[in-house]
């Protein structure tokens, strides 16, 4: 045949265009959801953070606390010596306005707890999560003295029945890990998931280093604050509506 089949070319061109438009978002989403393979270490290109919207947080709801307890194997009853990685705080200002919000480890970029730990057990992972290496912790509680947010708890009694993903035991200090065992498997922290499931959607999780993530976009558009911002600890957790 001598001439070119324009109709066929056009169909092919349209078809390829349509296919590209259909597949491309899928490729982008796949990249976001794909995350980091297990053999690859955490990297500084990401910085995980949380944004808590106090205006959406309900005073009588403690879904985040209960989810954290279930996920990490923490005791349900609260005593002076039991571990609390996240707690609901009720605020009342001078004129009677009340607020409710959760407080957990703020995952500071300049953590005082990391500075004071004698063995280096309290450390900041490359992607910004502040953790306690319980293999090295000697239980001196100096980090508990240093934390401005009272985020850390000391395990005062022997522990049994731990979750296989969250080893914890007597004599070491611990705090919110931002569900690092879930994040590493591309899931959300338990508190974030539970808050969404309860309908409040008050806690947002994401990569602060990625300007396109939901959390970065929200921080760029609304007023957010850090707790004890005067200390300049550059926390990874921010609050909206305080």
């Amino acid at each position, binding site marked *: 045949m001598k001439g070119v089949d324009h109709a066929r070319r056009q169909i092919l061109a349209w078809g390829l265009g349509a296919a590209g438009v259909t597949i491309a978002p899928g490729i982008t989403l796949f990249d976001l959801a794909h995350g980091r393979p297990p053999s690859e270490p955490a990297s500084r290109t990401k910085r995980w953070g949380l944004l808590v919207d106090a205006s959406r947080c309900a005073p009588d709801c403690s879904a985040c606390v209960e989810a954290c307890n279930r996920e990490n194997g923490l005791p349900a009853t*609260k005593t*002076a*010596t*039991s*571990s*609390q990685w996240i*707690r*609901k*705080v*009720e*605020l*009342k*200002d*001078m004129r009677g306005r009340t*607020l409710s919000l959760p*407080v957990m480890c703020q995952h500071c970029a300049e953590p*005082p707890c*990391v*500075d*004071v*730990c*004698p*063995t*280096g*057990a309290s450390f900041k992972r490359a992607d910004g999560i502040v953790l306690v290496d319980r293999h*090295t*912790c*000697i*239980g*001196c*509680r*100096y980090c*508990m*003295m*240093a*934390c*401005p*947010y*009272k985020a850390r*708890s*000391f*395990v*005062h*009694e*022997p522990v049994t029945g731990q979750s296989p993903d969250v080893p914890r035991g*007597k*004599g*070491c*200090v611990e705090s919110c890990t931002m569900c690092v065992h879930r994040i590493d498997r591309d899931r959300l922290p338990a508190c974030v998931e539970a808050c969404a499931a309860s309908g409040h959607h008050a806690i947002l999780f994401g990569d602060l280093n990625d300007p396109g993530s939901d959390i970065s976009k929200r921080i760029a558009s609304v007023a957010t604050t850090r*707790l*004890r911002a005067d*200390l300049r600890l550059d926390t990874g957790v921010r609050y909206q509506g*305080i």
Partner: protein
Amino acid sequence: MNRAAFARAQSRWFWALVALGGAVVLAGLLAAHAMETHGHAITGMDNQVVWGMPHVFAIFMIVAASGVLNVASIGSVFGQAVYKARAPLSGLLCLALLVGGLFVLMLDLGRPERMVVAATHYNFRSVFAWNVFLYSGMFAIVGVYLWTLMEPHLSKWSKPAGLAAFAWRIVLTTGTGSIFAFLVARPAYGTALLAPLFIVMSFAWGLAVFLVVQSAMYVWNERALPDSIAKRMRNLLGLFVVAVLYMVAVYRLTNLYFAKQAAFERFILVDGGIYPLLFWGGYVVVGSLVPLLLIYHPRFGSPRSMLAASLLVCAGAFALLYVFIVGGQAWPLEIFPGYEVTSSFGDGQVAVYAPSLPEVALGLGGLGVAFLVTVIGVRVLRFLPQDDLQPAVAGPSR
């Protein structure tokens, strides 16, 4: 009483003291074992007050350990002969108190079996890690210093060794004060003033402990401390007590000046319950003013007054440390300035702390260790200060 009977009686007393010291140390070890088996839940410490009675004892002993070496330093470094004669006893007491303080600190850890981890993993941004080196180095330096003091042909090295020990202990006490000075979060701490405050406290408490032990040794050996020496040491103690009062006053007044610290100061000084009581009654009156009266008032010049003054200074030290360590933690952290705060984790509430038996037993165990080391040390080696004096019983001279 002839010499043989005297020696037998002394020997019996010695073994009685060793048994007493041993019993106290055993109680401390049992307390530590209970804490390790059952966890810290059996103590009064919790997630709000994480450092309690054991730390009061331990920090007293460590600060006094560095201060008691002052007596030797005044001798070796500043050349005062009267103090030089007392240098060996001062060195022994330094080692004894340091061992006692570290005994308490290490056994109070959540995981004391991880001592090896602490000795092999260091985070050099932490003043605790530096303290590990400072404390171990202190043992070595004071050991060498004692050796130069007591070995006759090494005496020419005692001045450089004394200088090294003096410098080291200033750094060590600065490190101890820095443990608290570097804590930015709490209104009670986070001030550079704490390092010199601890240095001055070490002067006062170290000398007080030295005077107590010296008095006991003189009574034991049926000798009398000459009045001139007693007066000098007493006046020096008075000077140090005034210096500590000054530093504490500056610290409190500066805190009062800042609006954000005022509520905390009110808590400590006025309405905190046990804390104002211990601060004013325990530290200011019993621990400073009464000893000053006993030291400087012409009516009180006897060795007994000096001993009483020294004991009261030590009691005042415990009161001050309790207010400093426990009071500083009892006051809630201010995470939301301007708001009234409540939560399930003690936010916004003053923490309640009551010392428990295991904690007190552990603290006393540390004192027992220091006591044992001192008693055995002075029995075995010549630590009694040898001055040119008229002994009540003629004894061997050097």
